[in-house]
């Protein structure tokens, strides 16, 4: 808890110093994605009963904001403060295990990620002119939290392993773009070849968005699949705990 509070306070202090940029991004990013995808992909989005058509897109955009926000923030933090100035060496030298450090770093992204996603959800519902069921929105925040943790895990791994800033940014861009489409965030999976659809359905990011749509649009999906997401996060935590000591040898 001490370590989590230390990282949380650090993150809050960082955000305090650049709140204008962060707030602008939090407000404009979902609007930008919504308008771009809404115009560009409206033909491929399924029509919904009693809900405006673009209502299908919003859970995907919000989960992407949560996932990408944590991924980029943690990648940048690790990459910048690991190689360039060695700040993470001083964290590694403190009396904490790599596992507790990795988990605290990841969980410290939760409040920010949830607030960012709530803002996105509010703005997009206003633009849509439709409000999802309140209880569904409340439960949806749990999925947002999982998306933040998942994104944070990927960001940590990339931040620890990355060697070149430009190459890493290209990897992140490609990853987000491919996940955006292959995880049903932006388009339904039935646009992909039938052979790979089962594989795409069990991606943790696909499971999150399918469950999100279930909660917000009353579609059907199996809640058991959440175990796949939780298992992925747990496994990735273990991997990152093994990788984390690498930063001390630089």
């Amino acid at each position, binding site marked *: 808890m*001490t*370590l989590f*509070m*230390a990282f949380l*306070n*650090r993150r809050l*202090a*960082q955000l305090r*110093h*650049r709140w204008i940029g962060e707030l602008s991004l939090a407000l404009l990013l979902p609007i930008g994605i919504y308008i771009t995808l809404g115009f560009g992909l409206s033909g491929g989005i399924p029509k919904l009963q009693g809900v405006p058509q673009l209502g299908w897109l919003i859970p995907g955009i919000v989960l992407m904001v949560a996932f990408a926000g944590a991924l980029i923030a943690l990648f940048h933090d690790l990459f*910048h*403060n690991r190689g360039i*100035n*060695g*700040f993470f*060496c*001083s*964290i*590694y*030298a*403190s*009396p*904490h*295990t790599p596992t507790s450090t990795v988990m605290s770093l990841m969980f410290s992204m939760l409040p920010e990620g949830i607030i960012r996603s709530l803002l996105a959800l509010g703005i997009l519902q206003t633009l849509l002119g439709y409000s999802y069921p309140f209880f569904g929105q409340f439960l949806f925040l749990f999925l947002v939290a999982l998306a933040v943790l998942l994104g944070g895990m990927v960001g940590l791994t990339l931040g620890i392993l990355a060697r070149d800033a430009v190459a890493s940014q290209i990897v992140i861009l490609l990853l987000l773009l491919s996940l955006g489409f292959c995880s049903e965030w932006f388009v339904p999976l039935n646009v992909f070849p039938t052979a790979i659809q089962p594989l795409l359905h069990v991606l943790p990011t696909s499971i999150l968005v399918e469950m999100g749509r279930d909660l917000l649009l009353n579609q059907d999906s199996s809640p058991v699949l959440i175990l796949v997401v939780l298992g992925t996060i747990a496994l990735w935590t273990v991997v990152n705990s093994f990788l984390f*000591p690498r930063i*001390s*040898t630089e």
Partner: protein
Amino acid sequence: MEASVSLKKVGKVLNGRSVLAGLSFGIERGSIMAVVGPNDSGKSALLKTIAGFSKPEYGSVFIDGKDVQLRRIETASVVGYMPQRANFDSQLTVFENLQFHGRLYGMTPQRLNNRIASLSDRLGFREFIHDFPHTLSSGYQKRALLARTFLPDPHVLLIEEPTASLDLRAQYEVWDFLQDMRGSKTIIYTTQSIREAERVHDRLVIMDHGKVALDGKLDRLLENAGELFHFQIHFKKLSKELYDNMSKVTTVVSPSQVGEVFDFYAREREVFFDIMKLAIQEELVDYAADKVGLETLIMTSTEEPIR
């Protein structure tokens, strides 16, 4: 006296090169140990290995009798490590950096704020505490780094180049600060400044190629080195023939020619007169004779010179 830090046959290999070669020694509680040596002699690797975040290939390091690799959490809580280069989070102010560091070590807010106030006063950077680290001069960054290391009050301090890039006044302030800790903290610091090492130490370790070349108190080391004298004779013209003749004198140690200067060491003062007899016909510009100090001791103990 009880050993605070002890090393048992510690060896470390980096990129196929041995940077620590089977080191074994103990460091007494409350003492100040200076580690001196040329670049790449293994000083930094030694400190990182003692701190526990660089794993030795063989051997063990113990702090208060606990193996730093097997009981890292316990040992890390009593060790403070200060790197040579300032490694602050550039997105936080100095104050926020210190706060974060204190929280990492579980300090209560009140104790943390009191410690930050007293350390920033003592080390003279309080007026810059709400600035970002990269806006400070390297000297003030160093002071803030020292404050961060001392913040959780560790009793073993591993400090790399504590006064590098500090002006003379700041160097004295830092050494005063470290001297005040003598007796209560075990301090191990690396330096390339021979004068600093001569002035502040209870024990001196001279490292070369990952090995301890010399270890002890300066006066003891000089005593053990025996009567060693350093001579420099400046001729108007030092011919090759004369240089060869003088170098062949069996009592001359490590002769070298620097321009028109004949530089050599000897165990006895009389050797100087033997040399002068050989050069009686030559015109002399100047000469210098010194009893050996730490600098020459290091020069004769290591393969590469240090500044």
